């Protein structure tokens, strides 16, 4: 039964596109049904969707906090150059 469905529904390639679009726009009823059925039988795509959502959630968390994970600083030469430019303007 599952293979019957898998063979007749849009395949993983189309589903990856749909999964990405599901994060951008509401899906039509037909699209939602197709995706649901596909995910019912395709664990790989289940993981794919989970991972897209994980990536989104991780980036959102990072955006929410000041870049605590790195120690990147404005390089000293840039710092001086900018200060000089500002001084000549004021």
């Amino acid at each position, binding site marked *: 039964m599952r293979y019957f469905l898998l063979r007749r529904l849009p395949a993983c390639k189309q589903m990856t596109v749909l999964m990405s679009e599901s994060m*951008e726009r509401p899906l039509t009823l037909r699209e939602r049904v197709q995706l649901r059925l596909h995910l019912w039988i395709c664990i790989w795509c289940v993981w794919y969707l989970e991972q897209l959502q994980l990536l989104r959630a991780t980036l959102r968390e990072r*955006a929410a906090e000041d870049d605590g994970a790195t120690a990147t600083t404005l390089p000293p030469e840039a710092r001086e150059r900018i200060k000089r430019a500002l001084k000549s303007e004021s």
Partner: protein
Amino acid sequence: MSQEQRARETPTPDPAAWVDEHGDYLYRYALFRLRDASRAEDVVQETLLAALQAYANFAGRGSERTWLVGILKHKIADHFRRLGREAQAPQREGEEFAHEEFFTAEGQWTDHWETEYAPSDWHASPAALVEQGEFWQVFQDCLRPLPARTASAFLLREVDGLTSEEICEVLSITVNNLWVMLHRARLHLRRCLELNWFKLPEGKH
């Protein structure tokens, strides 16, 4: 109101102090989105110069940093607009990132995952990932090969939370262009992270 009070009421801008207090933050903010050190430096400089000019509108009301970041966002958007005007036709951009090889080309399982490219289970959580500096290093390395506009579209969407319409305006692309770019960015990033961060499945790569 005394003379001293009146002087305190109208603050004077101290640009050198802005660089000291906010320079690193603004630079990191710009660098994450522009992914180019010298462009990030330029945009920080443009921001502070613009802030100096616009100081009368701000004049110490509210948070200095919030105000500066607001100007920075505009400068970054301006930069992306320039990028959009100079870039090639959006549909052609990043065709190699369509990754046809991930899916079976023919036979009864056409367009299904090829086994060696199919996703594995990550067993991961955002909280665990976000605080690891090395993860962000790998993430940046994975972003790097993507075409500039594709990567920018992805970051504007996922980090800055811009709407589709806003991103399309900034990058001079249509909504369909955008969705293709986001799909390709995700397809590529997911795979790249699985290989280089999660290193799954053990032994397969």
